[in-house]
């Protein structure tokens, strides 16, 4: 993390919303993509990102190492998404096209429309832990060794969840072709 970002973290810790805004600006799209793929709905993802940003800002005191800002933000967001996922999964099963249109993905007509839909559907077959683990790897760019500190679970557990998730996705995607 460069020295400018270190300074921004220091300022954010003292309550400077503008500094936090600059830090957030560096990663906000990644945060949203993670939340959107994990939760599957635009409103839910918006909610999760908003809540997590506010939570992160107000608990900046617990961030010790400035260089870990991105990881720490993802931790908060992942926690928030997992909480919501449990509630959502209880009630919904599959994506329909209607939901996708309203849900913040611009679907143009074309050959990859089906692929996008099947990917979103495939994501739904993962359970919360798998989904979060897979999304953190794909969107957050975390190696599986880093995931365990983000998700606060043993390395081996995370790796098996990640693996299962990837296998399920692969299976779903190849079946739908």
């Amino acid at each position: 993390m460069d020295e400018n970002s270190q300074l921004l973290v220091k300022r954010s810790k003292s309550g400077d919303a503008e500094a936090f805004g600059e830090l957030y600006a560096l990663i906000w799209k990644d945060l949203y993509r993670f939340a959107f793929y994990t939760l599957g709905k635009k409103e839910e993802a918006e909610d999760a990102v908003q809540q997590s940003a506010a939570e992160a800002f107000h608990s900046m005191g617990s961030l010790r190492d400035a260089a870990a800002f991105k990881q720490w933000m993802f931790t908060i967001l992942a926690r928030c998404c997992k909480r919501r996922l449990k509630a959502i999964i209880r009630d919904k099963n599959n994506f329909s096209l209607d939901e996708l249109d309203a849900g913040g993905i611009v679907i143009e007509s074309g050959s990859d429309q089906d692929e996008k839909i099947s990917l979103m559907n495939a994501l739904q077959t993962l359970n919360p832990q798998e989904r979060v683990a897979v999304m953190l790897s794909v969107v957050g760019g975390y190696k599986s060794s880093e995931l365990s500190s983000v998700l606060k679970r043993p390395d081996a557990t995370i790796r098996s969840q990640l693996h299962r998730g990837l296998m399920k996705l692969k299976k779903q995607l190849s079946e739908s072709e």
Partner: protein
Amino acid sequence: MLFKRKQIQSDPAELEELQKVMEKLDSSIDYPVSIAPQNIMRRIREKQKPAVYNRRPIKAVVSTALCLILVIAAVIPMAVLHGNKKTVIKTESLKPPVNQYDDISAKSYDQIKAIINKLNTQQRTGTTQNTKAAATTKSSADAAAVSQTNIQVSGVDEADIVKNDDQYLYMVSNGNVYIIDAQSPAKMNIVSTISYTGFEFAQEVFLFKNSLVILVNSYGSIYDSGRVVAKGQTIAEVYDISDHSHPKKTRSFTQDGSYISSRMNGAALYLITNYYVPNSSSEKVKNETYIPKCGNTSAMKAIPAQSIYIPAQPDAPSYIVVSSIDITDNEKKVSTCAALSGGYNVYSSLENLYVTSQKYNYKKNNINSKSVMTSTDDVTTCIVRFSLKNGVVSYAGTASVKGSVINRYAMDESSGHFRIATTTYGDKNIMINHLFVLDDKMKQTGKIDDLAPGERIYSVRYMGNRAYIVTFKTVDPLFAIDLSNPAKPKVLGQLKIPGFSSYLHPYSENLLIGLGNDTAEENGRAHTEGLKLSLFDVSDPLKPREISNTKYGKRNSYSAALYDSHAFLFSKEKNIIGFPVNSYNASDLIYKYLVYKINPEKGFELKGNIQVEGNNNFQSEIKRGAFIDNTLFTFSDQKIMSFSLADFQKTGELKLPASQGGNHYGFRCYD
């Protein structure tokens, strides 16, 4: 038989494949404007929880989750009651400082430049530094029939996103300002809109007679051979709204720095910003930015050196800038004063403005064999005072106390003394709470040093010479503290009850309302349950009692009023409380607004349970309630609704224009 645990490795090839598929999806993603950096920043500013808290989950060690309420006793009769009445504060011992701080005002710009250069260098290398310090009222005839912003100190108005008089509503939504004719609730309509685009967005407003004052967030740019350096700026715009359909801008005043807060006392507007010198290596940029500028928007000037104060050992190239502007007289000179310090919480009495900031003590640590500066739990709160005598701003001293403050309600000035309640995280992560009393020279006269060890402060309310403090671990005590002797503040009584209050509001001299959460325990840890409203009888400070309480909602219920006093609606005359609530029903987030009737003997009765119908997104979250006569208005970014206060039947609805997409992304777009 021995089982060998199969080592499961995540397959990098699988990940790569998936990444490629996801990338296709990435390009179709529509990023919502509501979470763009600028809007997130705005949302964060609207809520005022301090930086230090929520770092630790609430740990339960004791078997019952009880709340401890401290009553800090008052011997002197209450001189101050929050309400719509004019405050009488006896401040004869609080002399306005005259020339006693001249020795620490800057002598020249060169002196300041040298300090700024040094601080910027220190910021880059991470060296640690330790530091050890009008009245306006609405015409009283209408006071009972028209709600007003829930302000901390009577006579000192606070800006908010919603204001109203007896005919019109004024609302800031998605960075724009709307003036709404509400004379006929069933036919509300927007009569004019003041909109902001690009990097500008309206934050909050004041209403003063026929003037609307709009506080606007903005950015100034400095160009230096192809590079652009942006610095935060705040604009105060004054509009004449005698003709509500055609507001006329009469003044535009710009001040360097991001908006911290503001106050109004009569026609005097006090604008407080925090200006951070951009850390640039360009000499041209350095020369243009090391001194904050302010003035009428087209004619900003650098603040004179003698108006800039350098308290001992500033630790960052940051200024607090305070200006006093008479919004009715464009010819009258504006007074501006700055101090080299940080600033995030603002408390203002009629006489003085106090700006506080938190300083963390950093120490070197080895993390992954790299030497890194990490913060410790050692936090101090630095307080800078500005005198507002006769509407003129002047520097009036600095003090430091240990610990951090929950919000501006932890501070109070009364009878010539300044009180502040803090929480420290001491050795071995044990929280302890303190209350400090300072005299008119900002010197400590007395303190309480060991309140509720193991717990932290959740809310504070001062009433004259009494302070009420709520702390919580799993047990939430309400403490009553006696402040009548500035040298010896003392705890008089305490009450332990379940749950905790995040906001305390005086109902009368002997009754205190608390809004907070109920709590429950699970596997040795406490967690918050639904919302809880409490009524405390503090007539006997040695034995405060909870007369009654009422609960609402289940786990994960939340109200903006827990942390933002402006979201709490209170009317003594109508005996009602109102506040927004977010709660979950299965997987759906429901936005509501609740109105309770208060009975001093029996407690609370839920009268209005307003729920937003339809597809809920953030734009439909109810943020404020206000009333004119017998009509209640609820405000969200999507719409304003009106209800009868008698039976809560809906009487009208006005949809606000949808938020603009595209251009409002913020000061920097990272792709």
